């Protein structure tokens, strides 16, 4: 097992060293003359109003939650996809039912308006539609 993954570990080391080296190169070769306006965040030439770190509305939050659910379900599918031919009809049909439920769930959330965050917040106004 370890032998199999050892090259990948080596590759990781190589990649990190390579990337760091390139970045450090510029740190030592480039000039370093900071001043206040230069270190200010860019906002089209105006002084920034407030901080970008302030609380910010992520409108696709619901979609992101949905993503986690679906991503996990997709992970279930992988091992089955490789071995289902040996597992017999019972496994096959149960997986089909599982995927159908997955699909129905997706269609349900789409119809419910998870993607309509653009037009209205998903509160009372979405229910009125």
């Amino acid at each position, binding site marked *: 097992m370890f032998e199999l993954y050892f090259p990948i570990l080596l590759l990781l080391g190589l990649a990190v060293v390579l990337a760091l080296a390139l970045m450090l190169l510029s740190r030592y070769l480039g000039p370093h003359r900071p001043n206040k306006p230069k270190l200010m965040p860019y*906002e*089209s030439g105006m002084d920034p*109003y*407030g901080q970008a770190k302030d609380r910010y*509305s992520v409108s696709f939050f619901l979609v992101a939650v949905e993503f986690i659910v679906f991503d996990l379900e997709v992970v279930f599918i992988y091992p089955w996809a490789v071995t289902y031919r040996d597992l017999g009809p019972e496994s096959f049909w149960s997986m089909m039912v599982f995927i159908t439920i997955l699909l129905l769930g997706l269609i349900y959330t789409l119809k419910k308006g998870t993607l309509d965050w653009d037009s209205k917040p998903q509160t009372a106004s979405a229910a009125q539609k």
Partner: protein
Amino acid sequence: MSNDSISDKLQPKFQKEHQLAYYKALEDKHTTIDLEHDPLGTRMILNMGPQHPATHGVLRVLTELNGEKIVKNKLDIGYLHRGVEKIAENKTYQEFMPYTDRMDYLSPYSNNVALCTAVEKIAGIEVPERAQYIRMVGAELARISSHLLWLGTMVMDAGAISFFIWTFRERERIYDIFDDFAGHRFTVSHSRIGGVASDLTPEALEKIRVFIAQFPDEIRDWKKLLNRNRIFIDRNKDVGTITYEEAIALGMSGANIRATGIAYDIRKVEPYLKYAEMDFEVPTRLEGDNLARYFVRMEEMSESVKIIEQCLARMQKGPIRVDNAKKSYPSKDEVYYSMEGLIHDFMMTDTGVCPPAGVECYHAVEAPKGELGYYIQSDGTGHPWRLKVKSPSFSNLQGLETILDGQMLADTVVVIGGIDPVMGEADK
């Protein structure tokens, strides 16, 4: 929010009062879209411009964002203010012309024509027929050139970068034409009060003929690429919609109002030059969105080609300036070979055309961006007592603020591209 909380978040270094007042104005603005309360304070206030790649110069849009959606916005214009109207009061009418080139710098010829026709109206000058046709050719070429830039930048703002270069290749040909026929590529200053500076040279005429023969093919190619392009249509359809009532109330003009269904084109409504004789259509659309503006301007380019064709066909040989030394420059032949000519040339440069005292007039032309009007008050000298420019970009920008409320952030650039403002003209 009070002034205090604004200055908590911002300590402007210059233009302090303006900055604070501006953020306050955004805070207090009422919008047409229904606002939900913002209990978590998640709205972000973002400056787009003046130093931004897609705001067509130095337009500043102050936006309040909820996610990527613009809740409200406020335009800040005036970063390119040069006091052109005040400068005009200290110049003769002819001397002022190069300044008009630099207002809508994308279609200088239309600006020259607008100033000349206004001065000719107030001073009662009849322009020879050939000069009128030459002006029309120039103005229509300028319209095509301006619309080409609009097309390139608007499609580039939507993400297709190559388009800009393709339209610029065609603009380059128009520059070459102007080079031959006006002596300048960009800021032409070719029109003169009482006529035009020089006649069309045979080379320029040939180049124009070639251009109008080939240009329709280019338009056809572009339409092929865009009219059925799903992404392009998705980006533009139902984006930046404005109703015709709003458009009228805000004083929008040009292609922006024609896209809402109002066939308001000064070339038809109140013809100047020889437009009354021309056979051309005023393209309109009903939707009022960005796609409608696209279709309207594309058709306008084809109509301009038609107008140029007709002008070339009808153009007769004849004088290109009024033969009246009090009203127009004498020809160079006269200046070089006769004493009177030289004196008249000096007089024209020194005093210029003197409209009657106490007279005022407004004259508008259909510039590529919309209604471009010059209002002149005369005190009887060669300088205008007051000169006011009604610039189409300025009035179209008034509509932009209404349009942008409720759009996505990515739409702003496309909508700004679709409204097609030129800041040189809006800020004057």
